[in-house]
């Protein structure tokens, strides 16, 4: 905490509490620190991601089952089942249940609606006289796994992507089943004889979970409602890209690839040439989110001919395969199985002609990197469908590559990853502003602002200093021009060239007597701007769309206000990178 600041947001004090972003308002006279909250909205948890403290991509997670460990509850379809709770569990506690069915071909179930890739996880132990369980996703095409609980062996049928049955302690097996489902209606459990015969009798069960996606994540306990963890709805995204925390603010975007991690070549994706195509192996390696969901694409043996592509999606803006004019960006995470090499990422088919495709040769290493390519569609050049292609070009060296997190979005720059699992998904814009607390009042003040504007080619504001009814805003115009605009005087306080995709520190200082100076990255860029600032109280608003010019995607590292004019030396020290 800076001991002179009247308001401090970020820096070493980043904190997210419920849906609100905490800042600290300080009083020099009372020597106290008062937390204040910035109200925050995004409207997305399942599509919002961030880079966490460990450098991994963190998503929102949700256990779609209700009463996940209350099997006699009203959410369960119990049929002829009865239950005894407080049974010895996998950890030696007493949270397991004995489930007894009095008739054959009867099931314990719960309705779960949806389509796409789903994963079930739960714990089972053989009963007093019965030895198995049938797990069933009831959908347009059912998925079944028959598990022998005496040894963990199993058989299966249906649209299974993945299954694992592993010993979990005290005779329990952890069962994980992942399937690609159309019109999932119900998840069901039948007691079996260890094979496929469904019988009466009993088994022991504990902690069931169903979630979207390819992998079983840590268990989330639920009650009468489903429950979430990870990147929660409306929670500010404190992002650790580059290793230091910052508030990530982005506009709304839709990932129009409907399976961003399930890259099955038999569905949306195509492997070519058909005579000897690229081969895809799902869940081959650990992905950038720390789960084993990355795909291996192999058999890139013939340069120029071995291709994996996906054109089975609609334009993000027109809803047809013929996009409206504009820019589209494709992105994907790539990594080698060993060493380094190149493979080509191609944003194709937007404008047929000699220069229709945009592509980059990706220098892939044994660390995950995200690559992106933007192409601009111009209808006057003719119409074609969008396309996402990974190809071994003539100069490329890789015969296989690890792949994860494919994304196609409208816009001239890539935004944070939006996971999809069977349907295209939209992440709402990040919307943050201050609550009713005010920052500083009349007279001298200083405003310090550290941030990294993310893309080039996008103009808008990143911060607003507001004193009713006037706004003074920090914005980017003409690509790389930082403009600090005085709405009252209708004039620019500062116009200076400043680079995107780099961190910048700015301090604006008013001496309380009609003179304002501005420092950018350790240099005084405006000396003696003449203006008498109106009396406060002032509010700080981050990235607000109150101004028509729009939001700019930005990492905000720190904001501080001071109820005093910092000295020249202090400003240089504070803003030096």
């Amino acid at each position, binding site marked *: 905490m800076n001991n002179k600041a009247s308001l401090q947001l970020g820096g070493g004090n980043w904190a997210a509490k419920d849906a609100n972003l905490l800042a600290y308002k300080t009083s020099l006279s009372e020597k106290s620190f008062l937390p204040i909250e910035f109200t925050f909205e995004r409207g*997305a*948890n399942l599509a919002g991601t961030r880079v966490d403290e460990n450098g991994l991509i963190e998503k*929102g997670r949700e256990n779609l089952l209700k009463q996940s460990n209350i099997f006699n509850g009203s959410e369960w379809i119990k049929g002829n089942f009865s239950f005894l709770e407080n049974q010895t569990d996998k950890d030696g506690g007493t949270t397991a249940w004995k489930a007894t069915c009095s008739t054959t071909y009867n099931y314990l179930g719960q309705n779960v609606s949806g389509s796409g890739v789903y994963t079930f996880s739960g714990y089972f132990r053989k009963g007093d006289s019965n030895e198995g369980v049938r797990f069933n996703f*009831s959908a347009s095409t059912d998925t079944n796994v028959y598990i022998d609980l005496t040894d963990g062996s199993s058989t299966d049928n249906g649209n299974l992507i993945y299954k694992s049955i592993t010993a979990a302690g005290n005779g329990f097996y952890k069962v994980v089943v992942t399937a690609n489902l159309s019109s999932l209606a119900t998840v069901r459990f039948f007691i079996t004889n260890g094979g496929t015969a*469904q019988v009466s009798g009993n088994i022991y069960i504990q902690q069931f979970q169903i979630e979207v996606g390819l992998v079983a994540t840590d268990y989330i306990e639920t009650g009468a409602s489903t429950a979430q963890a990870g990147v929660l709805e409306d929670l500010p995204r404190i992002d650790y890209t580059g290793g230091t925390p910052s508030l990530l603010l982005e506009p709304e975007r*839709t990932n129009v690839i409907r399976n961003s991690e399930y890259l099955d070549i038999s569905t949306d994706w195509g492997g070519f040439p058909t005579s000897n195509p690229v081969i895809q192996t799902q869940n081959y390696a650990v992905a950038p989110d720390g789960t084993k969901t990355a795909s291996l694409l192999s058999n890139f043996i013939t340069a120029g001919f071995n291709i994996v592509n996906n054109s089975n999606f609609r334009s993000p803006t027109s809803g*047809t395969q013929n996009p409206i004019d504009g820019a589209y960006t494709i992105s994907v995470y790539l990594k080698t199985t060993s060493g380094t090499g190149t493979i080509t990422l191609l944003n194709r088919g937007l404008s047929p002609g000699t220069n229709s495709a945009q592509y980059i040769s990706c220098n892939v290493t044994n660390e995950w990197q995200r690559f992106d390519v933007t192409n601009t569609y111009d209808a006057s050049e003719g119409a074609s469908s969008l396309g996402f292609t990974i190809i071994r070009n003539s100069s490329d060296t890789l015969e296989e590559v690890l792949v994860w997190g494919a994304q196609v979005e409208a816009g001239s720059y890539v935004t944070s990853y939006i996971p999809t699992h069977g349907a295209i998904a*939209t992440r709402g*814009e990040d*919307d943050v502003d201050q609550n009713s607390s005010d920052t500083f009042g009349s007279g001298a003040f200083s405003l310090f602002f550290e941030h990294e504007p993310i893309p080039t080619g996008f103009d808008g504001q990143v911060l607003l200093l507001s004193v009713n009814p006037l706004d003074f805003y920090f914005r980017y115009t003409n690509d790389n021009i930082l403009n600090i605009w005085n709405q009252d005087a209708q004039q620019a306080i500062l116009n200076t060239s400043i680079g995107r995709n780099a961190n910048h520190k700015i301090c604006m200082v008013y001496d309380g007597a009609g003179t304002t100076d501005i420092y950018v990255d350790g240099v005084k860029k405006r000396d003696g701007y003449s203006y008498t600032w109106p009396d406060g109280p002032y509010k700080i608003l981050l990235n607000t769309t109150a101004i028509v010019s729009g939001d700019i995607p930005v990492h905000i590292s720190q904001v501080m206000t001071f109820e005093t004019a910092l000295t020249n030396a202090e400003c240089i020290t504070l803003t030096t990178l």
Partner: protein
Amino acid sequence: MRTFRKYQFVDADTAKAAITALGEEHRHSVVELGHIVETPGDEENPPVMSTTYHVDVLWKGEVDPSWDEQMVWCPPMGLHVFGSSSAIKEWTETCKRLHPEYFPEPEEE
């Protein structure tokens, strides 16, 4: 509070006019799905596309009643979702109440 609803317009112009009528300052999320696939294609047959134009909206606050005549319901989550578990939950529960036929129970075996 946000509310997720799906809409079907007779054509793209009608849909875009309704979107324009929301004004420039609206804070709703509007995603144009356009002419959606009604029958998937295969190697011999192209997909059959809808003649109608489809739009998904995540309303910030109350649903605009002027859009109600275009509101449609369908089996859950096959084409597009807004990444909001609370909005998905509300939409699914409302759809199930209005159209239980989209939520068939499995038959006894």
